[in-house]
């Protein structure tokens, strides 16, 4: 136990400031992002992740969002197990034909407004795999996509910025 406590203290808190998309202020602190999410959604942001056929590179970066440097749970963002608990769908990969139906079911299970963020080159454009007998190509060929985050794979900061911009763009739509 002593060793665990010593390790926790010596490692300290490495959490960094989150990248901030417009229209939030550039100097946004964790608290500001939390309150922005609360204002827009009225609660913490819950995300359901679906790998629709990726090479697993993008998954490494989405997992990295949970490490102490990015600490997305500290910002009020949680990756949840059921689409029915989720406000947002994060999708990676070209959509394989074998995953097409599962992706549509997950999308349908998410309550409105069904925010969808496509992560990585393959999800945005079909990428190196494109369309074929086995691949439907980009995510927007299968379900409507709100925000695309290119990169192979995109960095955790790029993914976080994309997630936040999907939330804030939702606020703009709602204000019309």
């Amino acid at each position, binding site marked *: 136990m002593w*060793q*665990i406590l010593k*390790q*926790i203290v010596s*490692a300290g808190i*490495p959490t960094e400031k989150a990248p901030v998309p417009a229209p939030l202020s550039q100097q946004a602190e964790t608290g500001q992002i939390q309150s922005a999410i609360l204002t827009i959604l009225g609660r913490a942001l819950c995300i359901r*992740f*679906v*790998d*629709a*056929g*990726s*090479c*697993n*590179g*993008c*998954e*490494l*970066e*989405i*997992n*990295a969002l*949970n*490490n*102490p*440097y990015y600490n997305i749970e500290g910002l009020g963002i949680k*990756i949840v*197990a059921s689409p029915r608990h989720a406000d947002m769908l994060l999708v990676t*990969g*070209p959509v*394989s*034909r*074998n*995953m*097409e*139906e*599962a992706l549509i079911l*997950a999308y349908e299970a998410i309550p409105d407004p069904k925010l969808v963020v496509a992560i990585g080159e393959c999800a945005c454009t079909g990428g*190196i*795999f*494109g*369309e*074929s*007998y*086995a*691949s439907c190509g980009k995510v927007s060929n299968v379900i409507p996509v709100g925000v695309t985050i290119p990169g*192979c*794979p995109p*960095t955790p900061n790029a993914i976080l910025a994309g997630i936040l911009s999907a939330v804030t763009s939702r606020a703009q739509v709602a204000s019309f």
Partner: protein
Amino acid sequence: MDTEVFAEKYAISFNLLEGVVPACIADVSRPDWLRIAELVKNDGGRLIAIWGTDRRPLEDHYAISVVYCAAEGLLWLRLTVAEAGNYPDLSALFPAAERMQRTLFELIGIAAIDAEDVRPWLNHGKWPKDYFPLQSNCTGSEHFSTPLEPYPFVTVTGDGVHEIAVGPIHAGVIEPGHFRFSVVGEKVLRLEQQLGYTHKGIDRLLIGKSITDGARIAGRVSGDSTVAFAWAYCMAVESISRCQVPQRAAWLRALLLERERIANHLGDLGALGNDAGLAIGLSQFMRLKEDWVRLSHQLFGHRFMMDLVIPGGVTIDLDRAGIDLLSEQLNKIEKEVSVLRSIYDEHAGLQDRFISAGRVLPKLAADLGLCGLVGRASGQAFDARADHKISPYDKFNVRMATHRNGDVAARVTVRFEEISESIRLSRQILFQLPPGETVTKLDGAVAGQFGAGWIEGWRGAILVAVETDAQGAILRCHCHDPSWQNWPVLQHAIMGNIVPDFPLINKSFNLSYSGQDL
């Protein structure tokens, strides 16, 4: 490697493949196909991969290839098969062949005769049963609108037995696949996997590509093993074009490979702590992994080192300052991992979950062909870096980590020991890095050739086999991930354990979906 030894042992003549991998190739007759398989098996050899090639652009037949790993090196046997023909089943001798043979049929339409399990594997119903994408009359870009079909799982019956269906979408941030558990209460009687969900047509995509263009695709077979796959691919095409990679490039490749191994082991050790309820393990190891990949990004321009290994060499180089940064990081990580290891070792609750969970005894592991780091935790002492000393590993004297307990605890220990060994190797590379060029030009296209690459990735040994066509482009490129061998063994590892231990046992294997689905 001496082909005479093989010729004497198997009574057929072999041709040595060019390049750094000790491998030889032979065309065999139908009777020899099974005779040699038995000899290999009795001699302690292992089946690595089976695939089919439509060689009709060049010749008037198909070819079925099998690669075995013997103590001396790789044996690549080719059997000529006519259209709509078949080949003798190997799964009775090597159980690992079963899913590969089912896949081979679906891709190319040549079946293993007398095979017991002929259920579809990749084809979930989304394309017709008589559509074979690797046949030369198909383009691979055909679109179909057939519906998904239910998979005929084996059902378990009896008093109180029920099924738990999981996936293809899993609860966490992981790849898709379906697991069907048959349970009584909390106890798992049987697990059956249905994979293929991430099949995106990589085999078809590679056909017709130039041998330089294939590297980017090979590096995306399984993102967490991008260096290993890219290196194995490059090794194969360098063998085809008789290209000698500069020593400095080979050493830098080994540095990248060891960095990939450490990055993945750090991530797994954190996740294993977390799956057993020790959250500090996850946050501390994830912090170390983040530091690790950030330095890769700083020095090499990519956090996971994608596209750095290219045919002919590497795209990166290291100066004094870079070497100092890497050495410093090795010292820091070594110290931190040793603290975390003692926390893991001394944590009674954690060890209680690790010890005896998901046990695969050495006998079962050998029978089923378990390999890679999971195999080494079950007494299967194979590591291509140590066994075949492929350049530059001939200079390093790799110490293999092996244990015989075969449980989650053993798989955790192997990971810790491999991190230490990879740190030692990385130090040696940084200390003795030879001077010179980092890339050499690949001499154009070479027609009608065969080449093989064989690399011990962090998960296990990766094989990439390439055949070129009459123009020197790719006629067939087969990328083999060790997950093929290890997925079926996971079905055995979970038997008799309780359902809540499955995530932990699964994580201790940490197999690739994409690497096997292709």
